[in-house]
């Protein structure tokens, strides 16, 4: 009993801090998003900031594009991360395992900014990749590989790998090898084992990994900004533009809120489709 009381005295401030730093700014954002933009004048209540999102195609099209690309990123990351996680959790020797996890930590070793610039140097028209492709006769003239959506997705997948692999490793680790062997012994082939035993067991990890990756992609600013296509914006860039370029904080706040609401709705739909509950995912 006393131990519990001590814990709450110790913990409560941390938890309150975590919560307040999320809740307070959002309340403030919410309030601001319902105000019209008339600096100095009387700030009246209005829905115009939200209406603009639905009326002007550029805004909601950007959002749809962002959501679709984030989904693609999530799916690609999952298919790349699953064999890696399986290998790390089940097949790798202990020594090799440490090495593989360090490999996955590498993206954190290098600032995202420096890494993205590295890629830009590599992929630009006068970069090394073009140089070698022309050298080996695969291209006749340099191709601009930057500012393409495929490059951007590659960048997003790269940054997201760890967030998918770590939850997958932990669920795959908790899978008793004997279950796989038992299924094999009872006559199941490889695909049956994957679909009937491994995937159902790994569902919580797949779901939590996917949520994090989807959210990180959706909220990323630097990679889409630096690597993404010239003619198409990421939704975070819209928000940034409202705050910095247009200095329209009310509009930016509304966009920020819409990002939160719409992405939550997408995740909610995803959970419903896969028959998961959020509580199960986290535990």
């Amino acid at each position: 009993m006393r131990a519990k009381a001590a814990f709450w005295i110790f913990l409560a401030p941390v938890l309150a801090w975590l919560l307040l730093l999320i809740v307070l700014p959002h309340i403030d954002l919410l309030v601001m998003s319902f105000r019209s933009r008339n600096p100095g004048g009387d700030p009246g209540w209005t829905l115009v900031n939200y209406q603009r999102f639905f009326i002007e195609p550029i805004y909601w099209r950007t959002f749809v594009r962002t959501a679709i690309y984030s989904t693609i990123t999530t799916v690609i990351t999952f298919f790349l991360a699953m064999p890696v996680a399986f290998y790390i959790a089940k097949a790798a020797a202990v020594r090799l395992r440490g090495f593989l996890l360090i490999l996955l930590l590498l993206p954190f070793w290098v600032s995202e900014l420096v890494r993205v610039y590295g890629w830009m140097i590599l992929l630009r028209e006068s970069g090394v990749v073009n140089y070698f492709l022309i050298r080996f006769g695969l291209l006749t003239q340099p191709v601009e590989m930057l500012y393409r959506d495929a490059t951007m997705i590659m960048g997003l997948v790269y940054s997201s790998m760890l967030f998918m692999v770590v939850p997958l490793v932990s669920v795959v680790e908790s899978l008793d090898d004997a279950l796989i062997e038992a299924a094999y012994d009872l006559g199941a082939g490889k695909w049956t084992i994957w679909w009937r035993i491994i995937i159902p067991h790994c569902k919580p990890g797949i779901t939590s990994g996917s949520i994090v990756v989807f959210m990180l992609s959706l909220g990323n600013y630097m990679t889409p900004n630096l690597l993404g296509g010239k003619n198409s914006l990421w939704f975070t860039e819209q928000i940034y533009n409202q705050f910095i370029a247009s200095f329209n904080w009310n509009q930016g706040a509304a966009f920020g809120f819409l990002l939160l609401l719409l992405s939550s709705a997408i995740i909610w739909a995803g959970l419903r489709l896969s028959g998961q509950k959020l509580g199960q995912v986290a535990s």
Partner: protein
Amino acid sequence: MDNDLSIRDLVKRFGGFTAVDHVDFDVPKGSFFSILGPSGCGKTTILRMVAGFEEPTSGIIEIRGKNMLGVAPNQRPVNLVFQHLALFPMMNVRENIAFGLKRRKVTGAEIQTRVDRILERVGLPGFGDKKIHQLSGGQKQRVAIARCLVLEPSVLLLDEPLGALDLKLRERMKVELKKLQNQVGTTFIYITHDQSEALVMSDQVAVMNKGRFEQIGTPQELYGQPNTPFVAGFVGDNNVWPGTVNEVRDGEAVMRTQDGVVFRARSRETLAPGDRVNLFLRPEAILIDPGEAMGYNSFEVAIRAVLFDGANSRLLTVTPTDLEILVTLPQNQLFAHLEPGRTITAGWRPEAGILFRSDG
């Protein structure tokens, strides 16, 4: 072909370590065969090679006369009951049992009938819709066995399936498992480190140590006529009493123990005078106060402690050289006066002790 399983010259090496070392055996159709050995002796490796999870380094595994080399586990006519059962937690009892049948494309109605029949047989009728976590330890056990038996395997392999159960339940499941095998008539191959499980349930037991079979025989043979000191020590309890051979006559040897007592005993090896030997003598072969019975070996020991354990009670006694000898304490009031510190006379029939040459 009367043997469900034939193993010829089976070897398995992991790097430099030889887990299974030239093992040969046959398991007759419908019998209960156990492999008994301490942990790490290689018994699980044999089982996994029969199931197909490990490839033998060399040697032949034949099931009902068909060579199993290169046959994948999901194609072999054997099923394995895992040590920790490996029931699928994401499925209910019915789905677990139906899993193997579905893989064989058995029709839904047929599956329904066969699952119900096997649940009946293992004593769990109506348990089909229960979740795995709702079952007790003994019930899980039976579902795991039912899941294999429903596929009607040529051979059912069991990997210490009672190890996770608690004491009283284990005692009961031992008897139940033997009864079940009698009823269904499937060949069982059972591995365990618990000699009592092996002795009670099996028709034949192989005692395994360090990758080799030390002896194959009926439980009675292993207990009564062990071939090696390892078998004598591992199957049942034995006192070990070092000494030297004085003379050999009429198939019996006369030995002098380190305490200077002289015993007559049999041996399964040919001994010569002067050989250093160990006498293996079971606690229940030693009688307290044997009186003047004909031809008994007798000796005196001091009681150190009374180890009361109901029907299994023993005296912990010590010889003059401080060697501990366990003596079974019969369950009658005659010996109620025995207490620590007293010296008693004990005796045993020469047929009851076995001599093995000692290494030292």
